[in-house]
């Protein structure tokens, strides 16, 4: 995506603040696949992910004035909105379903081949990074990032001590960053 950008982040933020629909269209076209990917990863269901995507773009449109560049890039901010919205939606849904599926099961379900939506992405080099990331590293990152689990919840899900969660998570993130640097 980085090479196709015609707006800088600053220009995007300004355009959004002035309610420029052209900028918003650009934003949608360039970021909706990533945001939709997040929502789908969190919820595992296309209809629910589509609903979350709607909500997310409304929030971006309405709350752009609250974006603080000192805390991270616009993309990270949008990802966080998407995560929070999707996780909230998941929680209210799980609550309704009375949590039939245990967290461990849903965590392993994410890695079933038919749900591996990321394979359709054209970033082949990047896909290889995922493949080279150890499965347990991906699981721990995904539990935290896509399921919004706390350290305690992760410890319980993976049946590992709380201290180990921190260590493993740290290693997983460092590994991820190292793999990406090699590209």
């Amino acid at each position, binding site marked *: *995506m980085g090479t196709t950008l015609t707006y800088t982040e600053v220009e995007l933020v300004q355009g959004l603040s002035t*309610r420029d*629909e052209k900028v*918003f269209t650009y934003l949608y076209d360039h970021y*909706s696949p*990533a945001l*939709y*990917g*997040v929502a*789908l*990863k969190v919820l595992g269901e*296309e209809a629910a*992910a*589509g*609903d979350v*995507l*709607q*909500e997310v*773009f*409304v*929030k971006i*449109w*309405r*709350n752009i*004035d*609250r974006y603080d560049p*000192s*805390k*991270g*890039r616009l*993309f*990270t901010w949008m*990802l966080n*909105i998407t995560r*929070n*919205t999707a996780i*909230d939606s998941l929680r209210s849904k799980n609550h309704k379903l009375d949590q039939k599926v245990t967290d461990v099961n849903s965590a392993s379900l994410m890695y079933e081949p038919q749900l591996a*939506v*990321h394979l359709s*992405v054209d*970033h082949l080099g*990047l896909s290889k*990074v*995922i493949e080279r990331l150890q499965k347990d590293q991906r699981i721990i*990152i995904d539990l*935290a*990032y896509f399921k*919004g*689990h*706390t*350290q305690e919840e992760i410890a319980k899900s993976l049946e590992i001590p709380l201290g180990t*969660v*921190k260590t493993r*998570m*740290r290693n*997983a*993130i460092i590994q*991820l*960053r190292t793999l*990406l640097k090699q590209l």
Partner: protein
Amino acid sequence: MDPQHVISSGIIELYTAGIASEKEIKELEAAMAQFPEVAAEVAAYQRAMEAYVQMQSLTPDPQAKSFVFSNLNNQTIMQENTLTPDPSAPIVSIERPKGARWKWIASVAAVLLLFSLVLNYVFFNRYKIFKEYKDKYESLLLSQNSILSKSNLYKARLEQMQESMNVIQDPKVLKVTMPGTKAFPTALATVFWNRESQQVYLKVNNLPEPAADKQYQLWAIVDGKPVDMGVFEMGDTVNLLQKMKITGKAQMFAVTLEKKGGAASPTMEQMYVAGKIPG
């Protein structure tokens, strides 16, 4: 706080994965604001996470785009009509569930409509009652006016009758009956003459209605000469005592029919009634 210590503490990795505690987040964000190298390190991890997330991108249903934009247009309109949201509220909780806002608006609209219908009914009924009273009031006003005017008429008549009675009953007033002449035997009129005030009154007892261009004229005969006492009206006024001119002396009164407005001297052939003063 040492920036290198922050970087090597592992807090950035946990922050990036989204499992840092509230306290850790605050500390790290403070360090980011203070030390550019910490901020740069966080940014590097965030980019790695962004890249990881982006690997799992999936283009949504093309229909979703039009939904998003129609949703946005609604939101924009809504926002213009509502207060700006509280900027301190957390991002996550700001959005109402979709549809709830419309449900809310719809229920408010329904309540308002119901309220309006009730008011319409109440006010329409009041209007009907009001209109009824207004009609009654107007007809009462009309009848009161007609009663009032009739009453005024009667009052005026009564006053005139009273006046006539006063004249007739006054002992100083002399009554002179004027019987019909040979030519008009059925004609009859009476003069009342107050000798003190010299005022002459006339009462028509029976005279035929004259032609439109003619009028009766009263004469006093003073020392053999006719003196004009004025013309008088017929019609309704014949029921009343009519005030004529004054005369100090008279031996006789007579009425002739003259041209309208009266004549300088009486037309003897047209003398209807005549009466001598007794004594």
